[in-house]
Structures are given as structure tokens and as C-alpha cells.
């Protein structure tokens, strides 16, 4: 990685960890994870299993909030506040800026997901659960999904406003969890055009269920390395394609 990308990534990471809102969200997330005991009390079933269940959902939920928040504000903000002028007038290629930003944000998300996962692991232990490595494996899946969302947010940021970028990113997140169902229903149609269309849409839209291993962890069925590898390569190819598109759009951008 060239030094310039590293500098931009490091600066982006620094920006997020100096952001007070981030700490507020993180503190709230940790509180909810810590309180999952009380949530569990209302439900039926095995206590520790439900702590993992609720905790992972919590990591997922807050992770998405943070990803959308920093993905949108940071990339769009650079253009709105014109800090981007100071960076791009230096010997920096435009794609290096996009990649550096995405790398820095991914670093922040790694830290946040790790902190939440460690807290969940400890809470789970405190309530008498066995050491559960699955928490970290499921969190890794959540993290990969968040990185994909960052790539999408960067793409939307290159051509639209912060609010629209946020809406598009959240829409992608929602659709990304049901795109497989779309394929399923579309595939049952008698009209070939509908089948092709649903298949085309399925491959164009992100399939975020690729990264969802929460249930397997809760029910004690750890995923095999093959599935992890599969998810990793999906992230590399799909996320890479999205980021490439973002770079291409950004390269032609005329700054206001």
C-alpha cells in the first residue's frame, strides 16, 4: 500500500476515534449487551444462549449504524467542507483517496466490532456460559458485512448527498438480507424473463446473508473454514467491484 493511502487511512481512523458521537454509540451498544441478561429474563430458553443471540444482534445493529454514520459523514463531509481540495491538490491520485478512506473506516469498524465482541464474550462468561469462540467467528461475519456497507456508502457518496447516501446504503442493507428470497420467488416464475431478471438482480445486489452465521453460533454449529473463505472471497470481489466503481466515478468528479 503506498504511503499516501496509508496516510489517508490513518487520518481517517484518527478522525473517527476522536469523534465523540462514536463513543456515545459504542457506550450505548455495550450497555445493551451488558443488559441482555434482563432482556433474556423475559424470554424462555437457555439464558446463555439468549445472551449470545441478543448480543450478536446488538453488535450487528450498532455496527450497521456506525458503518452508515461514518461512511456517509466522512466521505461526503470531505467534499462539503472542501477539505478534499487540500488533499487532492497534493500528489495524491483520486483513487488513492477513495481507497484510503475506505481502509481507514474499515480499521475503525474492526476496532469497534472487536470491542463489542470482547464485551459480549465476557458478559456471556459472567453468566456462566462456556468460552464461546463462535462469538468471534460470527462477529467476523458481521465485520465483513460492515466493510461491504462501507464500500457501498463510499460509492453513493461520490455522486449524491449525505442524506440520500444514507438512505441508499440502508436500503442496500435491507435488500441485501432478502436478495436470496427474491431469487427464490423469482426463480419459481413460469415466465423466463422474470427468472432471468430475478437472477440478474440477485447478482447485482449484495447478498449479505453470506456473512450471517449468527444462528449457527447460537445453536452450537460452527461454520467450516470453507464457508468463511467463501464469504471472504465474496467480500473481496463484490466489495472490490463496488470500490472500483466508486473510484471511477470519483476520478471524473468536478468539485463544487
Amino acid at each position, binding site marked *: 500500500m503506498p504511503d499516501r493511502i496509508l*496516510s489517508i487511512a490513518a487520518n481517517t481512523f484518527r478522525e473517527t476515534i476522536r469523534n465523540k458521537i462514536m463513543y456515545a454509540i459504542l457506550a450505548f451498544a455495550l450497555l445493551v449487551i451488558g443488559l441482555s441478561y434482563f432482556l433474556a429474563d423475559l424470554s424462555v430458553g437457555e439464558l446463555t444462549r439468549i445472551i449470545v443471540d441478543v448480543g450478536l444482534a446488538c453488535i450487528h445493529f450498532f455496527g450497521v449504524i456506525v458503518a452508515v454514520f461514518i461512511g456517509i459523514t466522512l466521505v461526503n463531509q470531505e467534499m462539503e467542507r472542501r477539505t478534499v481540495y487540500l488533499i487532492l*491538490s497534493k500528489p495524491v491520485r483520486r483513487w488513492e483517496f477513495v481507497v484510503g478512506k475506505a481502509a481507514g473506516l474499515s480499521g475503525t469498524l474492526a476496532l469497534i466490532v472487536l470491542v463489542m465482541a470482547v464485551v459480549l464474550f465476557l458478559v456471556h462468561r459472567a453468566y456462566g456460559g462456556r468460552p464461546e469462540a463462535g462469538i468471534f467467528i460470527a462477529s467476523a461475519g458481521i465485520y465483513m458485512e460492515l466493510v461491504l456497507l462501507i464500500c457501498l456508502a463510499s460509492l453513493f457518496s461520490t455522486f449524491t448527498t449525505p442524506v440520500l447516501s444514507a438512505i441508499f446504503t440502508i436500503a442496500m442493507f435491507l435488500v441485501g438480507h432478502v436478495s436470496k428470497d427474491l431469487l427464490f420467488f423469482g426463480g419459481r416464475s413460469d415466465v423466463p424473463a422474470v427468472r432471468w431478471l430475478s437472477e440478474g438482480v440477485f447478482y447485482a445486489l449484495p447478498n449479505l446473508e453470506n456473512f450471517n452465521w449468527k444462528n449457527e453460533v447460537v445453536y452450537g454449529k460452527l461454520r467450516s473454514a470453507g464457508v468463511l473463505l467463501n464469504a471472504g472471497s465474496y467480500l473481496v470481489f463484490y466489495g472490490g467491484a463496488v470500490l472500483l466503481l466508486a473510484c471511477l466515478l470519483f476520478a471524473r468528479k468536478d468539485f463544487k
Partner: protein
Amino acid sequence: MPGTDRLVELERVSKSYPAGFWRRRVGILSELSFSVGKNEIVGFLGPNGAGKTTTIKILNHLAIPDSGKVRVFGEEAGQSPEIRRRIGFMPEQPYFYEYLTGGEFLRLCGHLYGMGRGEMNRSVGEMLGRLGLAGAGGKTIRKYSKGMMQRLGLAQALLHDPELVILDEPMSGLDPMGRMEVRNLIRDLKTAGKTVLFSSHIVSDVEALCDRVVMIDRGKKVAEGSLEELVGGGGVQYVELVFSPVPSPARLAAVSLPPDAGSVLGDAYVVKAHDTEEANRLIPRFREAGALVRSCYPVKKRLEDIYMERVARGDGRERAVPPVGS
């Protein structure tokens, strides 16, 4: 002396932006051409909205022209990052990452310029000192005043000792002291062999500093040249004569001045003569009318007058706010 090699060349550059609901394109620059020679200080003048910032953005490849050629160091603008290492750019009202300290920001810039660690640390300290920010390097930019931001903007543009310095309104937001410092800084850059292009609407700053001036209005060039070329003919606009005591109306009539050439100012009578010859013809006639000459002063034509001629009165258009020039 303007060098033969041109560091910046614009050739018939046009730029438009889509505007309004139908995204109709509105022309911002039309067929703008000018150049900046090596080791020149060139002032880029024009009223608000003339297109100065747009032109400067095009030079830095932040905006892309619709048509025309833009060459910097002989290469098409924005083609290679290596060219940008030789340029220092300060945008208009620069805005920084406010969570960084001034020093941290300059070090980030140093990294992006590809400076070595030793060179960078030395240069950051030097720049902070030179721009009067020595005590502020460790302060977060959020706490900077407007003038401090402006100074930091200059510091980041000069950090890597660039050959070509492009500044968009470097004096705006500065106190008189700060403006003086920036003037001196720009002069020092020229002495050090650098080339400077800066925009401004403060005519006196441009007049005091520049070898050459490029004046634009509504996206079109209205004047280009050295100060002497623009002001022309030795630059004397008229000769101001002050006589006292004020002659009586009857004796004044005998002097037979052209209409509007004279006026009473307190207990003196002020006359505008076209040139020194006319002044010399007038002096004895006033002596006969009983008034003695107290002062005789050639009033030079200033850049501001040219500016008013070419810009404010251009095409019989009226401006709600006259351009600032003081």
C-alpha cells in the same frame, strides 16, 4: 523579468455549470486565455463571481473545463501527481480537519507530498514560525481563529518548497499586520526564484506586489499586462493644483478655466490640469487673479482606475455592490 518559459498556460478555456431545475448549463468562463511566466508574481483580479476560484480550481484539476487547454509545467493539468508536487495551492477560505492540531495537519500534508521525516519536521517547525503560528502548532484547529486558518492554509501550501504557488485570496480575513506579512512572504517567494499566481479583489494588494495582472469579469479576460502596460503613458492622470486665497468670481472668470476643472475646497481653490504644460500656463493667470500656488501634484493613474474602467463600467452594466478597492 518575465521569463520565456511559461509555468501556467490557459488557452481558450471555457467552463459551465448546470443550474436550475432543467440543469441548463450556465457559462462561467468563456474562452479564457492567459499565462504565467517563470519567477513572475501575477495578480488575478476580478469582482465577486467573476470566475477566479473556478479558474484556480481548473488549474489544480479540481474542476474540469468543458473545452480549452490547461498546461502547468508544460503538461496537461492533473495528468500526473508528480507535477502537483511542484505546486503549492491554498484554496479560498481553507477548511481543515478540525480534530487535528495545526502541527498534525502539516505533517499529514508532508506525508502526502512525499517528504522525508527529517525534512518534514524541520519544514513544519519553520513554516509554523514563519506564519506566526509557532505557539499554535499543538492547538486543535477547531480552536483556530479565521486568520489563523488562513495562515495555516499558507503554511500547507509552502511546506514542500514548491516552484509554483497558487493562492486563492491569500489576504482575506487577515488583519493589517497579517496582510503585510503575507505581502512580504510573497515578495520573499519571488526573491527565492518562485512563481506566484494569486487572486484578490483588493486592488492595492495586487498593485503593490505584482509584475503582471490578469483581470477578468464574468468569465472573460478584460485586461492583461504589466502595471506599466495597463496604466500607460507614464501613468499621470492629471495634475492637481491648489491656489489660495480663493479668487473672486469676477477674477476667476478672467482666468477662463474649462468648465468643471476647478472647485472651492475650504479656503483654497483646487484645479485639475490635464498635464504639467497646462499647469504651467495656469499658474501665472492665477497669480494675476491674486491667488498663489500652494501645491502642485501629479496624480498617477492607479490600477484601481483601470479596474473601474474595465470592470465596473463594462458593457454599461450596473453593479449593486461596487467592487472593493482600498
